[in-house]
């Protein structure tokens, strides 16, 4: 299957809407975390949310998943939408013994060949009988991805999928996600801290800073004044090692950083 992203996107039945949010807002302890967010996710597309730390990225996907109640707005989810979710971190206590195989079959049973297949696809090299507490951070991240894929999701939700992964692995993991999307024909909604690394493997970017600053195709977004305001221009800053010279307060005011 060697379809380009665009071709694949067009092949999806009538661009089915999987999730549609209309004007959702959410407050936490008097702080406006999300403000009037409207977005929709269609079958088969990769949508990446970028934004500074504390911009409400995780809160937004938790709200979309129904893990966090919203104060205002409307949220539509396709009936019986199958979601594969990889949270930012899960806290596992080693007192609960779990092998890779058992971890993958926590909520549903899968045949051994299915398990081996998905481990191969996600690049988990340890044997299925290995204790999950013996895995490196990067391998565990891949295992979480494998677990999400086993349920053959229509929508894969990844909260910072490249954490604990070194820089070389980062680009590779994004490539993998893009490949997996084609193979599983699922939509992907993910959070990334760096647009430039995901640029090649995303269809649409949402730039978030409590509200949606701008959204669109990655190259357009990277030139959008709102994006440049938040992240700086890629021409003047080193691409992978940029820093922020200001941050946004909750009320939207700009805080200069002293260096």
């Amino acid at each position, binding site marked *: 299957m060697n379809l380009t992203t665009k071709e694949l996107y067009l092949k999806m039945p009538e661009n089915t809407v999987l999730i549609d949010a209309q004007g959702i807002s959410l407050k936490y302890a008097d702080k406006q975390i999300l403000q009037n967010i409207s977005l929709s996710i269609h079958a088969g597309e990769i949508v990446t949310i970028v934004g500074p730390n504390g911009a409400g990225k995780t809160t937004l996907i*938790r709200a979309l*998943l*129904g*893990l966090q109640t919203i104060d205002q707005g409307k949220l539509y989810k396709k009936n019986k939408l199958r*979601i594969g*979710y990889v*949270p930012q971190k*899960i*806290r*596992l*206590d*080693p*007192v*609960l*013994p*779990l*092998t890779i195989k*058992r*971890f993958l079959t*926590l*909520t549903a049973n899968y045949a051994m060949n299915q398990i081996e297949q998905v481990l191969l696809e996600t690049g988990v090299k340890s044997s299925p*009988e*290995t*204790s*999950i*507490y*013996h895995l490196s951070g990067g391998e565990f991240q891949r295992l979480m991805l494998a677990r999400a894929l086993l*349920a053959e999701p229509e929508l894969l*939700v990844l909260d910072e999928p490249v954490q604990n992964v070194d820089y070389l692995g980062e680009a590779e993991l994004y490539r993998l996600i893009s490949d997996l999307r084609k193979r599983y024909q699922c939509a992907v909604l993910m959070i990334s801290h760096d647009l430039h690394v995901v640029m090649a493997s995303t269809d649409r970017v949402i730039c978030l800073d409590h509200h949606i600053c701008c959204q669109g195709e990655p190259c357009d977004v990277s030139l959008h004044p709102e994006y440049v305001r938040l992240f700086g221009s890629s021409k003047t800053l080193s691409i992978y090692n940029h820093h922020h010279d200001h941050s946004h307060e909750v009320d939207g005011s700009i805080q200069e950083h002293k260096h």
Partner: protein
Amino acid sequence: MLLDDFFIRSIIAGIGIALIAGPLGCFVVWRRMSYLGDTMAHSSLLGVALGFLLGIDPLFGVFAVAVLMALLLFFFQKQKQIASDAILGTLSHASLALGILVVSLMTWVRIDISSFLFGDILSVEISDIGWIYGGGLIVLAVFLKNWKSLLAITVDEDLAKAEGIPVVRVHLIYLFLIAAVIALAIKIIGVLLVTSLLIVPATAARRYSNTPEQMAIGAALLGVVSVVLGLLASLEFDVPSGPAIVIVVVSFFFSSFLLPASFNSRAG
């Protein structure tokens, strides 16, 4: 007949308790809720008193109050300011103090505090065995039916919720089950030691387990062996049965650390 022998009755009752306490206790350990068992146990004096007041079997009184404790905890966990262990400590002593007050006001009833604290496994009657196995079977059936969901919410509640598991319902079912086990076990093991039958077999089984199922079965088996050995020791040396059982199971726990590493190196 066989059941006429008090010793046989106590062994049968003890085995029944161990079989359900072991696997359920694994979840107490996995969910870091060991103090929950203590809180429910401490509240049971209030439950016994309530049983007398209402003229119902103390078993139901204990169960009702334990469930109430669990619901209060569940409710207080919604706020994020005070951690669960502090809330459990508060609930635990509040209910114990209230229990003692109520019992002391009920001048017409005499409750044998010693057997309440330490249990009296050697006074087990046939009706107790009926309760333990009847109630135990219900607990086990509900438990097994919810096993996968319970495991999923133990690994990660958000993940479970995103995958469509009714987290709140499963959590409540689990609290009810723990309350039921405590109510069934308290007459036999006593308030002070009932938590140990939940927690210690599970922790002792951990070093030999690669999967949650192995650990649950291991905990049940270790519990059964400990009950039998403990009761035999109690008969042989004329010591209280509850503490004897606990010492056996605790020595299993410590000896699991003494075995050569190669024996359990696979368990991670």
